[in-house]
């Protein structure tokens, strides 16, 4: 028989134990959800219904959002560059009835109840203008950084048809040529460099087919090293040798590729895209605007002639602190001013409207490194 003391103790503990059990169950469910290895895949329509029309165009798009991507328009309104890019790319995907589009949004890691990590990658797959799959994924699963995305690409890609036009778009901060720690705010000890990107592209292109066009919507990736690293995987590359405002490139030309790229002339398309991106940027921003189109076949001569010079520079710089280095036009270093420097480079350039460089009237189309003066 329970004593009065035990009875009151039991009833008191019962009164407190119920809410604790409830909270514990909720926490356990959230924990199991966040740890789950089962990928919750959400398909809008069965893929088998769409496979009757093989795509003519394939667009792979990576949008990096794990960092500082805030910007403002001229009216002071705030935007996140990755969210804006995502909106534009999904419009491109929905407006292309003959394309398959893979969108990878790399987001900052968040936690449920402060402790339980949530999936930090979001994947969208469109085919023929329809969203067929939308899936959250873990960005840090796999031996290499590109494993989750290559895996998703291989799971969903349509069977290739002859004459498929392949496009790759990257949106984010400058992809480092060395070091690369802290590129992802959520994974400060992990590194991401141009070589990592090239490795991912190699796995996607697999059997030595190239992307017809790679667009790097980043700052300072129009460099000899970056273009040389990506050259095996592309016929044309669009990049900014200088600064690029976070409002990025205008993607309007990618809508209705069946109309705009009907003739398959990727070179003309790339130039038109670069011109349109340039025109939009110079109407909005006061900072420097450079957009370069690199014909990979035609720039190889120049790249071969300076690769040992640039490699030596990089080797020297790897031991320096980033704060002691800055980018510069390669034309400011006589070692790079060689015949053929401009071959294969179509450049759209406008200097900043303020600052020390406002009187710099031209740019070589290639960006290099130097020590801060």
């Amino acid at each position: 028989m329970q004593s009065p003391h035990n009875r009151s103790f039991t009833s008191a503990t019962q009164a407190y134990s119920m809410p604790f059990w409830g909270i514990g169950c909720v926490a356990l469910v959230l924990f199991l959800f966040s740890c789950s290895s089962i990928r919750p895949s959400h398909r809008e329509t069965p893929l088998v219904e769409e496979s009757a029309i093989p795509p003519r165009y394939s667009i792979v798009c990576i949008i990096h959002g794990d960092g500082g991507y805030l910007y403002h328009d001229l009216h002071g309104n705030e935007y996140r560059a990755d969210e804006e890019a995502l909106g534009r790319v999904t419009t491109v995907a929905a407006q292309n009835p003959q394309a398959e589009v893979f969108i990878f949004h790399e987001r900052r890691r968040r936690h449920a109840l402060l402790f339980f990590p949530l999936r930090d990658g979001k994947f969208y797959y469109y085919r023929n203008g329809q969203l067929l799959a939308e899936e959250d994924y873990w960005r840090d699963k796999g031996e290499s950084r590109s494993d989750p995305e290559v895996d998703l690409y291989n799971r969903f890609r349509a069977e290739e048809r002859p004459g498929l036009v392949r496009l790759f778009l990257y949106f984010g901060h400058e992809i480092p040529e060395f070091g690369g720690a802290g590129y992802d705010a959520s994974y400060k000890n992990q590194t991401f460099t141009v070589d990592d990107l090239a490795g991912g592209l190699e796995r996607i292109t697999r059997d030595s087919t190239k992307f017809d066009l790679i667009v790097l919507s980043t700052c300072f990736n129009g460099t000899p090293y970056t273009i040389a690293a990506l050259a095996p995987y592309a016929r044309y590359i669009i990049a900014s040798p200088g600064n690029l405002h976070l409002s990025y490139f205008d993607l309007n030309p990618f809508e209705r590729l069946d109309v705009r790229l009907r003739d398959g002339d990727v070179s003309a398309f790339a130039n038109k895209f670069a011109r349109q991106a340039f025109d939009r940027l110079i109407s909005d921003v006061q900072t420097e605007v450079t957009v370069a189109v690199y014909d990979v076949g035609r720039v190889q001569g120049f790249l071969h002639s300076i690769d040992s010079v640039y490699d030596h520079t990089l080797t020297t710089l790897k031991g320096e602190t980033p704060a002691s280095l800055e980018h510069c036009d390669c034309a400011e270093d006589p070692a790079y001013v060689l015949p053929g420097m401009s071959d294969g480079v179509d450049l759209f350039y406008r200097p900043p409207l303020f600052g020390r460089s406002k009187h710099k009237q031209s740019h070589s189309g290639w960006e290099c490194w130097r020590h801060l003066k």
Partner: protein
Amino acid sequence: MKARTILGVIGMMFVLVQSGIAGGSGDIQKYFNDTACKVKATAEPSQKREILNSSLQIMSKTLDKVQGSLLISKEDRASINRFKAALQEKQDELTGSNGYERVSDTQLNAFSDYVVQDMEQASKTITVTVLTAILIAVIAILLIAR
């Protein structure tokens, strides 16, 4: 006013910690975006110039104080140094000193946009730790509130 300032500081610290600022430059961008909005809202060039100058000076003073803190890492100190140098260049251009041509009255709105946009590039932006970002925000608020 003091109570509101303290509440603003506490609120800012809470938001900064909760949002886990990546890079720490977001609030500095917002600060200069506010400056640009105030510049454009004013018709008088002398007032525009004063708003810009004051804003650049407050941020410079803030960074001086943050740099003086023993809590700041070597990497953050280097980042802040670069940022301070960039701010000084803008002040010099605004006033026409150190070899710069003075920003004309008709260009003050555009210059205020330039100050904001120069921080909003897709490069490896100035990155500071959360602690440093909090210190910058707190000191900036306190300096503005004076």
